[in-house]
Every structure is written in C-alpha cells, then in structure tokens.
C-alpha cells in the first residue's frame, strides 16, 4: 500500500474564531479566515510564515494568494479548491492537502473555511430574480429552491423505502443539542432541546422540523497539516490521517433529481474506499462526526458508512446510542452543524481531531479512531478518518 496517504500526514494545529449567529460577526469574512488561520498556527506553535499551502472547498471566497499576501508568506506552494459539493468538500479539502504534503508538494498546509452568511447572503433562501434558466428552471418555479427542499425529497423516499420513523431523525437532533450543552463554543450552548420541544417545533419542509435543520452562522475554522515524521515536534498530540477521500456514485450529478440511485447520501462508493485506505472497519470507529445539513442526511450517511442496517434505523437511532461517552456510537460530539456552528462542516473535522487529542467537551474514552462524513446528499461528498499514534 505505497499509494496511500494513510499515516503520512498529521493534523497539528486547530483554530476557530468565535462562532456567531448569522450576521452577528464583528469582522469581515476575510478577516475571520485570517483569525482562524492565526489561531491554528498558534495552536501548532508555528509562525504563520511557515505555512506554504492552503486548501478549501465550496468556492470559499478567501483565496490563497490573498491569504498568503496578508500573512506575508514567502513561498506559496499549494493552492487548492475542492470543486462542488457544498459541505461535501470538507474532508475532500483535507484529502487534497494531505496528498500535497504526502507527495512533497508542500510542507505545511492549512485547510480552512470562512463563512459570513450575514455579509454575503444566506444558503437557506431562494433566488430573487425575474427569470431562471437551466436546471433551476425545472425546479425553482415549482417552489423547490432551498437545500432543505432539495434534500427532503431524497429523505422522504429513503424513509418510505425503509420504514424509517420521525423519531429516528429526532434522536439525531437531540444528541447534537445534548452535546452542545457541554460546549461553551456552541451557538446553542444553554439552549437545550427535549422531545416535546422538537415535536412542537414548526415544519420547515416535511420530514424536517426546525430542529432537523442546520444553523446559519458566521465564523471561520482552520487546521494545520504537516508530514507525519514531523508531527511529534508540535505541542499537541498529533491526529494522524488514516484516510481522506471524496467521490460520488453513478450519475449522482444528474440534473433535476434524476440520479438513478436517488435516496442516497452519496457515500455508497466513497465509504468502502475510505475504510480500505484507513485499514479500519466500521466497528473500529470510536466516535463519529457526521455532517448535518439535515438530520435525514445524517441517518443515510451512517447507513452508507455501514454503522446501521437500512432497515434497522428505528432501533439504532435513539438518543442514548448517539451520545458521549456511553453511547454505542457517540455522534456529533461538539453539537455539530445543528447546535455548535454551521462552519460548512469543517468544525466536524476539528472536533474529530479534538477527540483524538482527548480535548473534546464531550470526550469519548480512549478515542483512537474518529470518522468524519462531510456533506451528505450533495456530489461529490467526502469522508476522513483520524487516528492516534497507536493506530499507525
């Protein structure tokens, strides 16, 4: 297995800005990016001038040349954008950065995402324009125009095919809010959720209640990647990348909801490759961070990562199974996109590294293997697995 990134690259620095409700960040998006990158470098104990590469996703607006100029970086060696896929690019950007470090294209790459929906407009709103052409002409005039509306259609079909009940979605939301109550960084810290509050919350689009939907936030997050052989020279316990990759199944990008295997989180081909590269099995995963644009996507991602049989969701998806430290598979232990912050999912990768370091506010005992699934139901999606030194 020489053609792999397994064990060759480690995360040695984490940085986040404060997380804000949409529109409440005091800083411009680009400054948020810089603050997160500076924080990640400080965490790694390096000068920002040692960074020689940047990778991001979802058309992040803070481009690497501009960042390198702002930080005074002498020699920018790697400048990378993961195409498409919205939050599906989080682990993909890490995969790209890891590939650059593993092959010697760069020495110290920062993966980041900065997002100020207050400054630049909301994902959750439809386009306000007079006419629409192209793929959107076949959906938007029928009132199908937001991510919630695009993905509810897939989730409804999956729930129909496998007899999944609403309570399975509810359990995912309850677990996220449960974890957020121990996480002072979380936007929903101090805002607990119980069954009654969930059940009484308004529908956004069936089968999604308000609490099945991600937040809309401003902030930035960053992580520093270096070669594994250097990783022990940094202040924190390294989190080694055991696997990181992206992809999608046959015609996942077919337009107007025409993907043949429609009711999918898009991980069916990605997850087996992920486990092969990492040389781990689903049962080896100690803690999971699973991108929640909407709870239904979490459920489908977990099925496609083989944590649960598709026809066993009603039994598996109960709150007690999903919470740290005691659950069968502690999931979204920071509160994630539902209750910590919607940083387009990069916060989930950061939480996975925290678990490997032993620094989570909802720490899982002896967490050696942490999996992140980024951006279900889009295309391409991506996943990553982080491990302690013991897993190498």
């Amino acid at each position, binding site marked *: 297995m020489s053609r792999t990134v397994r064990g060759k690259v480690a995360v040695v620095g984490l940085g986040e800005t404060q997380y804000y409700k949409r529109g409440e960040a005091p800083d411009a998006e680009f400054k948020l990016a810089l603050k997160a990158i500076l924080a990640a470098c400080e965490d790694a104990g390096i000068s920002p001038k040692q960074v020689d590469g940047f990778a991001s996703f979802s058309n992040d607006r803070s481009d690497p040349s501009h960042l390198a100029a702002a930080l005074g970086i002498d020699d920018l060696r790697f400048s990378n954008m993961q195409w498409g896929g919205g939050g599906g690019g989080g682990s993909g950007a890490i995969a790209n950065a890891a590939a650059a470090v593993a092959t010697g294209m760069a020495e110290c790459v920062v993966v980041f995402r900065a997002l100020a929906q207050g400054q630049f407009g909301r994902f*959750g*709103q*439809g*386009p*306000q*324009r*007079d*006419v*629409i*052409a*192209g*793929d*959107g*002409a*076949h*959906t*938007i*005039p*029928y*009132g*199908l*125009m*937001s991510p*919630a*509306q695009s993905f*509810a*259609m*897939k989730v*409804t*079909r999956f729930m*129909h095919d496998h007899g999944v009940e609403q309570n399975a979605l509810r359990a995912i939301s309850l677990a996220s809010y449960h974890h957020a109550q121990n996480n002072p960084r979380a936007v929903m810290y101090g805002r607990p959720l119980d069954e009654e509050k969930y059940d009484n919350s*308004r*529908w*956004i*689009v*069936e089968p999604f209640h308000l609490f099945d939907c991600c937040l809309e936030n401003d902030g930035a997050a960053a992580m520093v990647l270096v070669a594994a052989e250097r990783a022990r020279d940094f202040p924190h316990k390294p989190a080694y990348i055991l696997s990181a990759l992206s992809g999608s199944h046959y*015609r996942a990008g*077919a*337009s*107007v*909801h*025409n993907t*043949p295997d*429609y*009711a999918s989180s898009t991980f069916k081909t990605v997850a087996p490759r992920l486990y092969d590269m990492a040389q781990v099995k689903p049962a080896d995963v100690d803690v999971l961070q699973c991108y929640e644009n909407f709870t239904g996507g979490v459920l489908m991602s977990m099925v496609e990562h083989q944590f649960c049989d598709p026809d066993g969701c009603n039994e598996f998806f109960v709150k007690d199974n999903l919470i740290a430290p005691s659950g069968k598979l502690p999931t979204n232990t920071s509160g994630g996109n539902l209750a910590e912050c919607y940083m387009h999912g990069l916060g989930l990768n950061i939480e996975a590294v925290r678990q490997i370091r032993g620094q989570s506010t909802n720490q899982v005992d002896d967490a050696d293997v942490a999996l992140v699934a980024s951006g279900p139901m889009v295309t391409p999606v991506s996943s990553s697995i982080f491990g302690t030194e013991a897993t190498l």
Partner: protein
Amino acid sequence: MSYLNSGLPKPVPAPDGLDSPFWEAASRDVLMLQRCGSCHEFQWGPEWICHRCHSEDVGFQEVRPVGNIYSYERVWHPVHPALKDQGPYIIVLVEMPECSNVRLVGNLMGDAEQSVEIGTPVQAFFEHHRDVEPSFTLVQWEKV
C-alpha cells in the same frame, strides 16, 4: 389558475437552447422529453450527448404525460418573498415509466394538506402563465 402565488422566478429556455423544445411544447399542452436517436433511451434533464451511448443524436419526442409519484414533500417554510402568504404546498417528483424512468419535478394539484402516497399514478396538467412577460407554462400533476 396558478398553484403557487405569482412572483417566483419565471422559467425561460436556456440561452444555449438545450431545453427549448420542452418549453415550446409545454406551451401547446404537449410534453416532450429528450430521447437518444441511437439507443432510444430517454434522459432528463436534457444533456448534450446521450449519457449511455455518447451519441450526439439526441432530440425531443412527445410522450404520454403520465407517471407515478416517486417522492414528494410538503413545504411549510417560505424561502422566497412571493411565498410568504402561500401556506403549505406540495412538490412531487414524478417518475415516467414509459420514458426510461426519468423524473420530473412539479406540484401536486389539490388540497395542500392531502395525504400523498409514493407510487400514486398522476397525469400532467399544463399551467399556462400567458399574461406575464415572458410568458411560460409549468408542467403540473394531478392524481389520475
């Protein structure tokens, strides 16, 4: 009669002409979908070549406007100002068994709070908007 309140973006043919025959036909109460002249399979949305056999010989053919509900959703929260006072509405994804199982998006006519079952047969209903500029036609669906 219009299912949704007016004011949403109006569909226009793509500037490259790729879906123009669909919209032109809809204005005449005809459903036309893209079909490969070489392998004779349908595909939707329209594409420049056949994704199966890669032939460039892709054209449009009139089809029977009937299908089955493949999935659906009832929307409650408006994400566009035009829908602020709309109340709930139903979007259906309709599979066309006579057309290589391609799928179309539309609204389901009738009570927005009706129960909907996956697999229900539906037929198309052409919703004309002739008094606006540019005029357009939506392909909507009603239970058979």
